[in-house]
């Protein structure tokens, strides 16, 4: 690991000023950043430790019925907060399907939102990667790319965003509060992450020094709590990133879908909201035929970026399955294997 300076400011204003200096990076838990630094992928000159900043570790209900989550709330604490899990069950399930218990105990809300892609070529400093080194080329393009993007990718970059948490957040119109040199502003999570285009090194809407201080979910997001699921296909049963994942949230009244929210994970450089599919579902009766039509619509623009054409049909099927289990109703408790396609129903095998 390259050497670096370490500062631990005591106020948000001081942190923003320190992090605006070139070569600076924020340190929260460090579960992704230290890994990147050990591999030489990230080489900051200065770490600005935000873990002691006051007022960023609370979960508070808002007067308008929404909820505000401090950026330093740990992933495990949010997922196990009983009121949060009751109101936003798909978010809790997504959190619990990510990483390991040790990492969830450490990783923060803000850090999860800003974690970097797990593309193997991004992590291998001997490979060409436009995201790591602009203009270097992309070895993933003709490499081992069966897990790469099928939506929104470019010739410059075919990496995917790895977060589970962000997928239901995008579906539920979550917003981040950002403190920067010009004061505080809101950014919808959907607009936080960028598609690669010709500048894959620009991954988010944040400017140097910008600090995510909180995440908000609007009051409407809780209206889906009776029919909300997250479903995630992995190459192992647990502790693996998504091949494809989906968040599905429905408001069903009198046997008819009033509103639907859908987003896909593991398919693009950002969590992928499927608005056309949501529109198609509104007013429909929940059945497999309409779910399949919604899935076709959601993946209409998908195309393989390599050996990954299978992910397009897999994404359609995961959407149909996620909608099916969401329509069946949110379970009383997050399943033993959160978001797993193998944990539904009695008699689920233990050896898969």
């Amino acid at each position: 690991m390259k050497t670096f300076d370490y500062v631990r400011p005591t106020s948000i204003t001081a942190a923003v000023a320190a992090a605006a200096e070139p070569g600076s990076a924020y340190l929260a838990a460090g579960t992704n950043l230290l890994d990147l630094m050990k591999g030489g992928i990230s080489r900051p000159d200065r770490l600005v430790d935000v873990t002691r900043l006051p007022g960023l570790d609370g979960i508070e209900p808002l007067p308008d019925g929404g909820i505000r989550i401090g950026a330093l709330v740990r992933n495990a604490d949010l997922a196990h907060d009983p009121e949060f899990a009751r109101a936003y069950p798909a978010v809790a399930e997504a959190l619990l399907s990510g990483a390991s218990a040790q990492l969830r105990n450490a990783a923060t809300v803000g850090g999860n939102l800003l974690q970097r892609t797990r593309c193997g070529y991004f992590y291998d400093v001997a490979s060409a990667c436009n995201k790591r080194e602009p203009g270097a080329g992309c070895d993933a393009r003709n490499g081992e790319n069966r897990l790469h993007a099928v939506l929104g990718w470019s010739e410059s970059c075919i990496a995917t965003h790895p977060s589970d948490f962000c997928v239901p957040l995008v579906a539920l119109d979550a917003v981040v509060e950002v403190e920067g040199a010009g004061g505080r502003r809101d950014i919808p999570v959907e607009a936080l992450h960028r598609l690669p285009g010709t500048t894959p090194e620009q991954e988010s809407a944040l400017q140097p020094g910008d600090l995510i201080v909180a995440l908000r979910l609007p009051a409407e997001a809780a209206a889906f709590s009776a029919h909300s699921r997250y479903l995630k296909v992995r190459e192992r049963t647990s502790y693996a990133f998504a091949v494809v994942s989906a968040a599905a949230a429905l408001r069903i009244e009198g046997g008819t879908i009033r509103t639907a929210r859908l987003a896909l994970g593991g398919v693009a450089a950002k969590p992928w909201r499927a608005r056309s599919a949501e529109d198609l579902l509104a007013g429909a009766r929940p059945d497999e035929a309409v779910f399949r039509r919604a899935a076709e619509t959601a993946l209409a623009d998908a195309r393989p970026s390599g050996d990954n054409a299978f992910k397009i049909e897999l994404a359609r099927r995961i959407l149909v399955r996620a909608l099916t289990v969401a329509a069946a109703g949110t379970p009383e408790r997050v399943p033993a294997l959160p978001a797993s396609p193998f944990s539904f129903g009695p008699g689920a095998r233990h050896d898969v």
Partner: protein
Amino acid sequence: MNFAISLTVNGVRHDVELESPRVTLLDLLRERLDLTGTKKGCDRGQCGACTVLVDGRRINSCLALAVSHDGADVLTIEGVARGDQLHPVQAAFIAHDGFQCGFCTPGQIMSAIGLIQEGQAGDDPERIREGMSGNLCRCAAYSGITEAVLEAQKKLAETGRRDAA
């Protein structure tokens, strides 16, 4: 630049001068405090061999900067037994053959102690397997590990009930 930090490890306070902020909590435990029970496996947060409890929560000590944990209360494998009396999780790992080579075992045991304290898995083997998925075992002693955690969980629940009564 030097960084002075203070940690409580297994109930003992340590004041440590770090020559560099790069030192991980894992390296501090092993290299500075000679507590080599905590193992360095992958050193990248993937294997769980370095699991310790920090302020009562299990984390990967390889992905924690020591300087950022100034003031923390750390529990390692060296601190779980009471003299010659093994911790119930340690005893259960022996009783159920929850290991073969033993390299991952300190991390497995610390992770199991954390899992039981979190109270989310109860006596459901599927929840225990899921909750222990951040600890790899190359000898694949997984079925023994699950049995050990189940038994230790039961023993600790009984002790808790007795203590409460």
